[in-house]
């Protein structure tokens, strides 16, 4: 019974982590059809920014921890915004319309450059940012102790899911985005300024990517290479859920989260394969992911 409860809570916490990371990636892919390898860099920059912010806020002051969390999140998202702007206006706009895979490789090149840029800016040492995690405290569920920070992350993920679905469906701008996701040419034919939509989407995606790094920073040690692992996880979740589908990313994150938690508790030997196994299994049954309608073939 305790194990089942553990699997549920761990699965939810890991799913929240995956969803927050993947939502920016799926949004950018859905709208712009760009599989952004540099998403890992947004994560890394968000985390480093958050670590710097936490260092500034908490060292020597006794200020409110919730305020620190907010400051950290805002700092991370600000860095994401700046980075996204530089990338989109500076590099990506020259490759719109080129072959999909070329664009992926451009983002891969950008990722390589940004990895070393991190070293230039922050050096090779690692940065702690644990204060918000510690301040959040924990709650006891019998033998099981849960960290409140994980609960915060689950709430955040839920808010993001609900918020983005609502925004896409009920705000004017959201509907514009949905139109562009469905068919870019027709949307342009209707007078939608697709270039602006692209830029704004990329910025939102960048900020979400940086946000994911910022909120994870207190749990990890912010060091070189944290972006690399995240890329594959994000890709897998987005592939499972369907590119461009936020509900898909949510369901994909939940499936992977619960499966992985079950594996760790029950069959630890397969933990390494779980995410790739689920991805392969889903793609075999539904080649475009869970939530994307089969595209009609264009003659």
């Amino acid at each position, binding site marked *: 019974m305790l194990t089942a409860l553990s699997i549920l809570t761990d699965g939810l916490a890991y799913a929240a982590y995956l969803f927050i990371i993947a939502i920016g990636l799926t949004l950018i892919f859905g709208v712009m059809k760009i*599989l952004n390898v540099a998403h890992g860099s947004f994560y890394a920059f968000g985390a480093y920014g958050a670590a710097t912010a936490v260092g500034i806020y908490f060292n020597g002051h006794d200020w409110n921890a919730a305020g620190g969390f907010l400051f950290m999140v805002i700092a991370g998202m600000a860095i994401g915004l700046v980075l996204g702007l530089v990338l989109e206006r500076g*590099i990506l706009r*020259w*490759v719109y319309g*080129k072959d*999909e*895979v*070329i664009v*992926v*490789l*451009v983002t*891969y*090149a*950008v*990722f*390589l*450059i*940004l*990895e*070393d*840029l991190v*070293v*230039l800016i922050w050096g*090779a040492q690692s940065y702690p940012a644990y204060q918000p995690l510690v301040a959040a405290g924990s709650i006891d569920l019998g033998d099981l102790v849960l960290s409140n920070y994980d609960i915060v992350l689950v709430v955040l993920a839920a808010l993001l899911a609900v918020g983005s679905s609502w925004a896409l469906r009920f705000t004017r701008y959201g509907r514009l985005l949905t139109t562009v996701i469905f068919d870019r040419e027709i949307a342009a034919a209707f007078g939608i300024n697709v270039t602006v939509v692209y830029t704004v989407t990329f910025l939102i995606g960048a900020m979400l990517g940086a946000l994911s790094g910022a909120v994870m920073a207190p749990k990890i040690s912010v060091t070189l290479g944290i972006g*690399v692992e995240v890329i*594959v996880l994000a*890709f*897998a979740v987005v*592939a499972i859920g369907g*590119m461009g589908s936020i509900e898909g990313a949510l369901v994909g994150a939940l499936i992977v989260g619960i499966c992985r938690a079950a594996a760790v508790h029950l069959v630890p*030997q397969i933990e*390494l*394969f779980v995410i*790739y*196994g689920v*991805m*392969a299994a889903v*793609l*075999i049954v539904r*080649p*475009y992911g869970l939530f994307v309608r089969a595209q009609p*073939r*264009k*003659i």
Partner: protein
Amino acid sequence: MANRSQIIGGLAFAAAAVAAPFLPDWVVSLATIAFANALVVLGLIVLWRAGLVSFGQALYYCLGGYVVALIARWTGFTDAFVLVLLGGIVGGIVAFILGFLIARYREIFFAMLSLALSMILYGVLVKTESLGSTDGFSVLTPTFIGYAPHRDALNLALYWLTLGICALSALGVGAYFRTIAGALAAPVRDNEIRVEFLGVSVSHVIHVKVVVAGILGGLGGGLAALAIGHVDPNMAYWTTSGSFMFVAILAGAGSVAAAFVGSLLFEGVRSFAADTMPQFWQMILGTALLVTILFVPEGLGSLLLRLRRRKARPS
């Protein structure tokens, strides 16, 4: 009947072979590894022409390497020709089996599924402690039909073996491009449905290409294993596939020879970057890739094509 480009290509390979004893050892080793990798890139180019990008060629590269290493270790058989050939064959067989699954996918999903399969192999190898897990294990020194060279002679022997297999593969792939199945690559990329209406099975065509790429990947991996002397699961990791894609972009899908020149160039740039800026070599590579994509999107091979066209234009 040999045509002009085959003669030129043959001469280029011959020149590369003859030059070797006069070049420093470390250049020869670097070139051997570059040419072994170029075989994998050639496989990528075969797929790319049909509009398919594989982010999992490292699977076949790793398989080729491990086949060579394991057969040598388990049976003591060290003949390089046979081992590398076996690497290619195993690559082909696995590609044939996986092809049934993969040939149904296109674009990003093809890429993602191939990545997933390659990472599954990685996971299996990491979990296999008897094979050394992430440490891998070393490959026995190869022999060449009884001849057992050491040091410089071994270096040269491996280099010539690699060149030989590369030349044969280049000829083979060039010939394949001139067949109907090979020539169908561009139509398949542009509009599959029309190709099907012509009565050709597109998934069959793609399946064949997957197998060709698998064989080339296996050959490349086997040669690389002999050249490096060590195999580890990292050969199947997605960043390894990424570096092959990198070279493919540098080279462009335009021609067979581009794979070899591009691979040599990449190894050279990487080594140069590691030498001059040990902490920032990734940034140099990334910038080189970016510049190539932005300014020479068809790859460096196309630069020469443009030069030739300009020369041919009258007045």
